[in-house]
């Protein structure tokens, strides 16, 4: 089979490694790749009396720069399942979106509520397939007909089933809080407090995590997504001088024409054409 015929048709799916040789040559010549947008991160989850609580910080980093001060790291998978993601932001978003839609199709097919193990198996199958190149470290939690479940999934595809879990660069700081304070049978408020404390520990002790705390509480038949549950890093200094942009262009004339009178609004109308 000659190489020429392969070059004509693009690959149907998966990764194409054609440009690797070129990249190696370029990096040898000194060209640096642009950094991935990583979510340097603290994500945590714990099982409490009635269900599962997930927590995450909200900082997304691009190398040493904070590129998003308030991003969302707790992704929707199913009405009763949520997933926190750490690692490369694109990978976590894409993988959770993909599995979320697969779960939806599965729900239509079976007519039943999704189970956490289903999401777990779909995710780990995908990640193992890519041998760790899809850099997504996830904390998956949810409540289904068999009870509350909490799992961690590593980029290479291995999983753990745990009562409390942390992932990301701030995982050690958050784990130190969990290891010293976790008890079985926590109430909802105790659980939220502990999760917030663990994420705050990551925010203040890890450089890759910061800004605010997101919390998601999942119980049987009910979920609460507490976006920005805590804002421990408010902007406290605002200069009283205000902004003073120097006047550059002289204003000769000001004329204000209200546009509403000039436009006719028709209800309905034709559908957009291609």
């Amino acid at each position, binding site marked *: 089979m000659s190489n020429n015929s392969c070059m004509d048709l693009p690959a149907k799916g998966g990764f194409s490694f054609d440009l690797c040789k070129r990249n190696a040559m370029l990096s040898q010549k000194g060209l640096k790749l642009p950094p991935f947008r990583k979510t340097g991160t603290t994500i945590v989850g714990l*099982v409490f009396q009635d269900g599962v609580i997930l927590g995450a910080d909200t900082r997304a980093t691009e190398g040493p720069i904070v590129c998003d001060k308030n991003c969302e790291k707790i992704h929707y998978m199913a009405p009763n399942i949520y997933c926190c993601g750490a690692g490369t932001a694109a990978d976590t978003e894409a993988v959770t979106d993909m599995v979320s839609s697969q779960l939806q199709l599965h729900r239509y097919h079976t007519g039943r509520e999704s189970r956490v193990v289903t999401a777990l198996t779909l995710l780990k199958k995908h990640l193992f397939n890519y041998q760790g190149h899809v850099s997504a470290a996830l904390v998956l939690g949810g409540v289904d007909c068999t*009870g509350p*479940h909490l799992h961690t999934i590593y980029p290479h595809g291995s*999983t753990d089933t745990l*009562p409390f879990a942390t992932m990301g660069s701030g995982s*050690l*700081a958050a784990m*130190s809080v969990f290891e010293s304070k976790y008890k079985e049978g926590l109430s909802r408020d105790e659980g939220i407090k502990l999760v917030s404390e663990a994420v705050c*520990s990551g925010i203040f*002790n890890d450089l890759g995590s910061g800004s605010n705390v997101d919390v998601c509480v999942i119980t049987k038949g009910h979920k609460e997504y507490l976006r920005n549950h805590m804002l421990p890093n408010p902007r406290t200094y605002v200069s009283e001088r205000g902004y003073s942009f120097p006047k550059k262009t002289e204003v000769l004339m000001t004329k204000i024409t209200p546009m509403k009178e000039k436009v006719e609004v028709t209800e309905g109308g034709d559908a957009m054409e291609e």
Partner: protein
Amino acid sequence: MGFSSETKQNSLLSSEPGIQRTQYPYVTGSSVVALKYKDGILMAADMGGSYGSTLRYKSLERIKPVGKHSLIGASGEISDFQEIMHYLDDQVLNDNMWDDGNSLGPKEIHSYLTRVMYNRRNKFDPLWNTLVLGGVKKGQKFLGVVTMIGVNFEENHVATGFGNHMAQPILRSEWHENLTFEEGVTLLEKCMRVLLYRDRSAVNKFQIAKITEEGVTISQPYALKTFWGFKAFENPTAGADGSW
């Protein structure tokens, strides 16, 4: 001390065959955690010495008194720690020979150690340790760290190695001025317990050392209670057959 062929080799030893200095540690001690409390300094360390991934020695004393006023705790290469103790013994001996009623305090020893570590680092032959130095002299408490490249600083609570990641967050949120002795020990034990759960090179055999104006007390080795009985650990895959 050492060979004087540095001139020939220009201290980029990898380029010339012949002399090789220590590039990596062999027998290592794990973390040391210390904090200031009302009457002085509390320091804790486990008694394990790992040889790579084997737990080779389980009764190493990694906290030692220095002179009348200081305590030193070390993590990293044990043989280098023993060498440092040798140098410190020389210093203390010298100090005693003066017989002038004054004795080396923790600040002086900290300064001496910084010089030693930094100079070795400049010769590309480091002493592979992170040292914690604590002491009380004339009512003044001192707690500082010297790393293997000569970085040195003073703080109210310190930790080395893995302790930086797991113990410092706890200390940062729960340490305050004028802890009592019992509070200090509880706080240190909390940190050491977390390290015991999550650091693979930790052993469940600790010594806690205390230094106050009166002197040094290093406790007998003891073990911490751990809890492994979470219901979720017993049957983690209940309701999720086939996963693990």
